[in-house]
């Protein structure tokens, strides 16, 4: 027990006590810790991609009786915290989950910076970190630092590389010309993508006729779209975030930016994107995309039924898949021994809703990076290493 000589520690002790530092009983449910932004700038995306997946997983697992361990089946209980899109809060919440709630497994955080901030804590307590909302080019270095880290997502450069490859193919087939207008949101992911892509565009022989960034939260993107249009591009690429992704397409329509290839990065894969724009969303390219399989269609359906939220076509099924990997690993090991589970994940490939998932080297070897809306489904149309891709349509339906 702690000494209560000091006011501060006493107060903290009271808080800690009320938070439950007691021991868990046997045959308790398996405790799964969840942390993510319910409020703050990233809450919009997390509400669709992050939180519902855990609820869905919990329901599916508990409906069949729980996870099968050697000692019998045990159901899952979720313990969730809001990190308010602030890394110090994420750190505190994960510490709380690890040392106070003493959960058996902790789900990844939402956002590259947030996962990085808590990676040391995961490592210290041997929790596997299956990071999905985590796009980086430093993966090789990071997995060496954190042997428990699994990067369940493509690298930044793949998103750029594959988008450019799609455009290059269209150009080589003489379907579009050579001139590209590029814009990006001036925030982490947008900046990274833009800077990675620029030399790749040049290498592919494209002529960048407009290359500008805009601040996060800009309320009027018409100068940007007007400027892009004035440069007479054949294709338009926006490394954008949800609010601007929504605004840019609308602005493009109004300004008459009738390019045959239109790409906007984040949130194009949201169903609300297709919902807002209806037929205008057809043939828009964006980050993400899925292969049209019964497994995926089922997943989307169940997601909506159980959580009430329309899954997106980028991160949602990936989350679903990593949860399947975790589930299969826990059941494969037969216990909640985290080190064993981590080793199990590195020992084989897994059958998941997105197909075969190979995390033996802690990183995905390939990922669906470019999608296109075709007939109400955001199909995977570009990704190196995949063969079953849908052909790309031209956006002639302005």
């Amino acid at each position: 027990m702690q000494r209560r000589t000091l006011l501060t520690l006493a107060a903290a002790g009271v808080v800690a006590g009320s938070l439950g530092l007691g021991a868990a009983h046997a045959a308790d449910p398996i405790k799964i810790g969840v942390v993510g932004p319910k409020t703050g700038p990233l809450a919009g995306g997390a509400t669709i991609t992050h939180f519902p997946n855990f609820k869905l997983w919990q329901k599916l697992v508990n409906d069949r009786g729980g996870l099968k361990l050697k000692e019998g089946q045990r159901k899952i209980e979720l313990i969730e915290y809001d990190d308010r899109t602030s890394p110090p809060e994420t750190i505190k919440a994960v510490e709380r989950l690890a040392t106070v709630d003493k959960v058996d497994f902790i789900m990844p955080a939402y956002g590259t910076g947030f996962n990085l901030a808590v990676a040391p804590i995961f490592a210290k307590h041997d929790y596997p970190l299956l990071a999905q909302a985590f796009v980086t080019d430093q993966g090789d270095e990071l997995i060496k630092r954190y042997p428990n880290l699994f990067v369940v997502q493509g690298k930044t450069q793949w998103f750029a590389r594959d988008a450019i490859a799609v455009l290059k193919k269209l150009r080589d087939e003489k379907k579009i010309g050579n001139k590209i207008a590029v814009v990006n949101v001036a925030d982490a992911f947008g900046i990274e993508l833009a800077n990675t892509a620029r030399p790749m565009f040049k290498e592919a022989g494209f002529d960048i006729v407009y290359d500008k960034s805009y601040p996060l939260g800009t309320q009027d993107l018409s100068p940007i779209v007007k400027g892009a249009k004035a440069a007479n591009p054949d294709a338009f690429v926006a490394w954008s975030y949800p609010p601007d992704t929504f605004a840019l397409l609308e602005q493009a329509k109004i300004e008459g930016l009738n390019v045959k290839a239109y790409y906007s990065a984040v949130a194009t894969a949201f169903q609300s994107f297709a919902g807002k724009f209806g037929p205008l969303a057809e043939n828009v390219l964006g980050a993400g995309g899925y292969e049209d399989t019964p497994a995926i269609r089922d997943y989307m359906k169940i997601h909506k039924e159980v959580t009430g939220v329309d899954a997106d076509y980028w991160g949602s099924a990936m989350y679903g898949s990593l949860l399947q990997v975790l589930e299969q690993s826990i059941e494969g090991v037969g216990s909640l021994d985290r080190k064993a589970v981590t080793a199990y994940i590195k020992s084989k490939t897994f059958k998941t809703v997105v197909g075969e998932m190979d995390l033996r080297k802690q990183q995905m070897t390939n990922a669906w990076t470019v999608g296109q809306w075709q007939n109400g489904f955001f199909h995977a149309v570009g990704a190196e290493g995949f063969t079953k891709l849908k052909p790309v349509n031209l956006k002639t339906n302005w």
Partner: protein
Amino acid sequence: MDIIITGLLLGGTYALMAMGLQLQYGVARIMNLANGEILVAGAFGTFWFYSATKFSPLYSLIFLIPLAFVANWAIYDVLIRPLVRRAKSQGQLEVDSILATFGISFIFVGGLLAVFGGEYLSYSYLARPIFILGEPYGLNRIAAFIGAIVLCASLYIWLHKTRAGLALRAVAVNPSAAGLVSINVPRASALAFALGGAVAAAGGSLLSMFLTFDASLGVVFTLKALVIVIMGGVSDIRGAIIASFILGLAETTVATLVDPGLTLAAAYVLFLAILLIKPEGLLGRRSS
């Protein structure tokens, strides 16, 4: 030329964001940090109305404005008035109102989250181009601009041509002197606060035609409104209007002629420069 039109449209957008706070701070002297959340609530109300009925979202103003007015009056009466009564100085009231409205903004965000969820809400309405002098402009932005003009004009006329408006302006200039000439200062302040809230909600409603909203977005609008209100000088509504349009034009000019990445930087430079040259804001009066 299209810089000017786009800049004016943007200025209208900004005016919609700032007018509410102008009334709440300029007259009622409450630095309402929850202003952005009221605006977002207005946008959400319209989104819900449009999704549910498919009638023009502009009709939602019919019930949103009175609803926001009443709600804000209640907020003032219940939550703010005790602070006004016990504040011994203007400075203390400002500090107290900053703290209290900070708390209120959290309550709003939590409330919006609970009712509407955390995701992005957006709809398409009047997303058609209108051609002015050969250049296309969004009809929804033009509609919002017209809304802004109507709002600013009616507020201005009401403030300058009615007794109630006169009372508000008197309170804005000097609350204690206003009390001496038998103006019911507490009532005028409540009226200004409620009116400011209604204007903010209406602004949010109009903006929802072309902006994407989520529950946490309020703070962005509050920040912008704060900058505009202070830049314009606190005591005169015309200051906020002028500041909105100056910012809109400046940002558009920089976006088109210099670099869109510097739009907000330029806006802040302009704001800082104006304050350095005229520390009370554009139309502000030096307080005694």
